[in-house]
């Protein structure tokens, strides 16, 4: 059986994946304009400053929208369908795409509070995912 694809950290995303392995959601924060950004990038998308710093994010957010995938787009997900893909609005103001775990797809509700959890993909890489949180 084909496994799900596991990401390989590259130079710029390494702090994100290092954080995830240690159970911390790390995002880039701009010291010049106080803006957060995601996905990972070289320069602040708000003000063009190159002074992005890695900071631990709250890991809290809410469900903005989601889909239940039925089509197998990659053989690694053949046994995973139907699985959810969700957009999570984080408290920091960025919208992150991930999966919701610890609950059934039928229980997903837009607006529900969520918190980050970390799921090991292999020995070296963990993925930030989200589960329902107390309101």
């Amino acid at each position, binding site marked *: 059986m084909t496994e799900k*694809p596991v990401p*390989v950290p590259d130079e710029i995303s390494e702090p994100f994946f290092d954080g995830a392995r240690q159970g911390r959601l790390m995002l880039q924060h701009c010291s010049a304009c106080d803006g957060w950004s995601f996905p990972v990038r070289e320069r602040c998308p708000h003000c063009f400053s190159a002074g992005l710093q890695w900071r631990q994010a709250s890991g809290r957010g809410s469900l903005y*929208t989601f*889909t239940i995938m039925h089509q197998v787009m*990659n053989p690694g997900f053949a046994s995973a369908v139907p*699985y959810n893909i969700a957009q999570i609005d984080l408290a920091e103001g960025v*919208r992150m795409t991930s999966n919701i775990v610890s609950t059934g797809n039928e229980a997903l509700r*837009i607006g529900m509070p969520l918190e980050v959890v970390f799921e090991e993909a292999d020995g070296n890489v963990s993925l930030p995912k989200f589960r329902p949180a107390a309101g």
Partner: protein
Amino acid sequence: MANQPKGAIAGLGVTQMGKIYGRRAVDFAAEAIALALEDAGLNKSDVDGLLINANLSGDMDARSQMVMGFENLTLINAMSAYGSTAGSMMQYACMAIQEGLANVVVLVYADAPLSATRGAGQSYAGPHRFPLAGMAGLRAAYGNFGANPEYAMAARRHMHLYGTTSEQLGAIAVGQRAWAQLSPWAQMKQPMTLEDHQASRFIAEPLRLLDCCLVSNGAVAVIVTSSERTRDLRQPPVNVLGYAQCAPGDNLRTDRHPAVETGAKRSGEIAFRMAGINRDDIGTCQLYDCYTYTVLVTLEDYGFCAKGEGGAFVADGKLAPGGALPTNTGGGQLSGYYMWGFTPLSEAVVQARGQGGARQVPRNDYVLVSANGGILTYHSTIILSRHASG
């Protein structure tokens, strides 16, 4: 120069579409351009501008000029704002013609993602080689491939906010299938009912198979020149009265709501103002329809109905043959053929000329054309007319 034609369409070439295997995109492109020149009554040597819509596979680029043997071009580029590129190309062609940089500009889209071993589902599924590094790898690890999940999430958001239903989206698909049955170019000919739509399997909930566009091998070419020049050519002139782009920006911020308002709103406002006409003047819409939902949100953003009322607006069949707002009259990308923004553009030319045969709409004075690229990221609008002013 408000209310003056920015340029005009003199020729249209559309190849066979669909599961036509073993040919390169550039070969389809050459055939479409030859058809368009014949259609216009122009010669290959008349062409001095070539704008190529870069496709996802990357095999349509500026070097296509050499493969196709064009010489002494004074305008050449491969352009990409993804699905919205057709409208951008039309803008740049008209501006170049007005500026005297070129006289006869070919716009072409060609693609050949389908093969005997690679079907529609995998053609636009994104990367096929793993592992992937960094953020691309993260996206894949969540099972997020291609456009299907992204548009599904946008449609879900719209449903949540406004009560839009799958049946309402289905009305769009059913109407366009009815149009496709009237078009000799359309790939999908078998009748479709709302029950068929509802019975079709989910691809990415809430989107079903029959909410999703086709994937086609083929090409479309459009020849643009000045409005004056088209008067002496073979076909009835189709004047370009207005055009605009809008790219709203990063979707991955919590203050952005791409599922709610797309670039159609701003680009539509600009294009209507430029053309000097109102929505009521539009006799037919040719809208980018990668998914049924795209049509619905585009109609809202162009102001044909209030925001959030798109579901009820389309549910009565007004987009279908005989309806009050005939839309995607060649079947669109859902049932006709998938050539990015050249699907709506090509059908708009047919309708504006009055050459639609069984599918010709009664009011073809002004035709609204949209194109949409990325994940509701890029938008272009064109207003075409058989008249030389708005």
